[in-house]
């Protein structure tokens, strides 16, 4: 294969067929094709509608609590002794993660389309909670598919969804984690084509989800760009985020893609280590293929059967990655590193102790690469890291790994 062309303008992608280079597309059963075409058209119309954008902005301000702060982490910076570290505080959003940005956008779209029933998949439960939240706010019935393994390790979030009025359906097929929850949500959608809106939680899946979710999450990067210009009078040297499906990462990255001087760094979950084979690093340990409606990097065996992902973090425990990341990797615009479970745990504790912030175990994967990134960028440099969620949901997991009973 020839090296893919480096684009002049990253914001011009995807193309009309939902392609970022070779990646993306609409690999879905025929029953769903009219639905994804409808969604594509409805989203394009909403995107161009100032009224829709104003309504969304209103909810983001008054319900979600935006803008989220860009916080200079002085003690963390001092600890590493390199570049200045700024944290984009998405964990302060209502419901405790970036997921709500996307949910608010999609629920308004769903209502605009006249849909009366919402379904979603969730891994950590953060997207499920955010979906259940907006469904409660707008009075729509909500079904959340969640792998039975994840139901077990994220019990507080399951209860939270129930409190919000959502029905959580445990999924036992396949590996009983996020990818299987997504299969089951797609099966529901194929079955309930007339009234149901599928609210996907990451910048993954078939077109138009990757571009739509990116657009709804790009508020993170737009705010961060303004905030760092205000605080430092210049752009950062690097922006860093953890990558599961890739929504918090692409949300931060996208407004910086055309800024040549800004390094773009994603961090995948390396589980027990890349060489162990037990990880969730689609780019670092997978190859291109087709799953859940799009062509992207996937964990798979020689036969093209999808392999189970492994990560301490339920939110990163997915064998794929959004197609835009696959493309940014191939064209060399972004770099994808990885962090192991153990490294993420250490970073979780470090941020808790030094800054008084419990990070989501997902976000802790990005934090775990700061020692090298801050060193490389150097003392006069600036790094912006997306603190995509708060860690309260993870205290049981962390305690278990420390051998503590709480």
């Amino acid at each position, binding site marked *: 294969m020839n090296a893919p062309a480096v684009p002049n303008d990253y914001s011009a992608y995807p193309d009309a067929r939902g392609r970022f280079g070779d990646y993306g597309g609409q690999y879905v059963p*025929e029953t769903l*094709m009219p639905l994804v075409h409808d969604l594509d058209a409805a989203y394009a119309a909403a995107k161009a509608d100032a009224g829709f954008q104003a309504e969304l902005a209103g909810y983001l301000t008054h319900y979600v609590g935006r803008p989220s702060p860009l916080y200079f982490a002085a003690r963390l910076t001092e600890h590493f002794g390199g570049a200045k570290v700024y944290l984009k505080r998405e964990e302060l959003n209502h419901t405790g993660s970036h997921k709500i940005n996307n949910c608010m956008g999609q629920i308004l779209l769903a209502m605009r389309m006249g849909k009366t029933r919402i379904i979603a998949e969730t891994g950590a439960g953060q997207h499920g909670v955010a979906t259940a939240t907006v469904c409660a706010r707008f009075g729509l019935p909500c079904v959340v598919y969640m792998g039975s393994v994840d139901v077990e390790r994220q019990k507080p979030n399951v209860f939270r969804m129930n409190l919000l009025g959502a029905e959580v359906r445990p999924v036992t097929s396949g590996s009983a984690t996020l990818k299987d929850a997504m299969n089951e949500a797609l099966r529901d959608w194929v079955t309930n084509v007339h009234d149901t809106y599928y609210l996907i939680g990451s910048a993954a899946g078939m077109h138009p989800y990757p571009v739509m979710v990116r657009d709804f999450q790009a508020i993170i990067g737009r705010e961060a760009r303004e905030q760092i210009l205000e605080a430092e009078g210049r752009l950062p040297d690097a922006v860093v985020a953890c990558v599961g499906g890739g929504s918090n990462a692409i949300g931060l990255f996208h407004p910086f893609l055309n800024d040549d001087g800004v390094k773009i760094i994603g961090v995948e979950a390396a589980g027990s280590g890349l060489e162990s084979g037990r990880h969730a690093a689609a780019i670092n340990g997978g190859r291109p293929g087709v799953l859940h409606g799009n062509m992207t990097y996937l964990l798979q065996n020689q036969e093209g059967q999808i392999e189970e992902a492994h990560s301490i973090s339920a939110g990163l425990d997915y064998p794929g990655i959004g197609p835009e990341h696959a493309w940014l990797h191939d064209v060399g615009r972004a770099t994808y590193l990885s962090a192991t479970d153990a490294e993420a745990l250490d970073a979780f504790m470090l941020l808790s102790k030094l800054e008084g912030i419990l990070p989501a175990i997902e976000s802790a994967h990005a934090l775990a690469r700061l020692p090298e990134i801050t060193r490389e960028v150097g003392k006069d440099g600036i790094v912006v890291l997306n603190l995509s969620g708060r860690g309260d949901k993870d205290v049981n997991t962390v305690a278990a790994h420390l051998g503590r009973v709480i």
Partner: protein
Amino acid sequence: MSKSRIEARFAALKAEGRAAFVPYVMAGDPDAATAAAILKGLPAAGADLIEVGFPFSDPMAEGPPIQRAAQRALANGMTLKATLEAIRAFRDGDADTPVVLMGYTNPLVTWGLAAFARDAGAAGVDGLIIVDTPPEEAGPLADACDANDISLIRLATPTSDDARLKVVVSRTSGFVYYVSVAGVTGVKEADAVAVAPHVERVRKASGLPVAVGFGIKTPERAAAIARVADAVVVGSALVDEVAAAVELNEDVTARVLSKVEALAKAVRVARHGLAPV
């Protein structure tokens, strides 16, 4: 050669004035040897065409029966290569019964689309149904199929309006598969009265025979569909027989083939003494 095998079979059935019975079986389910014995026995049991599923770990349009069949096959080490070998072995004993492979995109991407179409054609595959490759994404696969005289068979569904049907039937041959229910395989039941006008619409749009599948479990239902469609596909109900036989420690091949016989017989006699619906 291969495309004409499907055409010849439908032409012969048209002359007989009856619909085709098309069993769907999963390659390697419950194991390679048993699946091979089932495949070999299908024509004598009444199969006019055969659909062979190849297993995928994440079959998003399948209900529990076919999901479990794929898992049984994968657990016993079934591969796409072994699937083609099984079809080649079947072809050695049967030169006429068309075989259509059905499954998901990723294993083919792994193989390489052009190489796969060549190897499948050489093994005696006549058609391909790739559930998650819609017409919009099918260009390279359609090229590969054309180059090897394999029919790329398309799915039409209850959500296909007339404009969509035009897209669906582009670059297709052999027959069109009408998915009789909005849903996954093996859950909802197809209704012949509701299906009939859609079959007619798809026939008109494509000029091809129309097979109906996804919600047909019993001989009665198969007969009702056989009165309105050109072919009746039964899958979940057959893989459920595999599961039951394994569970009860019965002869899997005998149990599956006897179900095939009952269904095939119902399809054969469906139009006797009955005015078309």
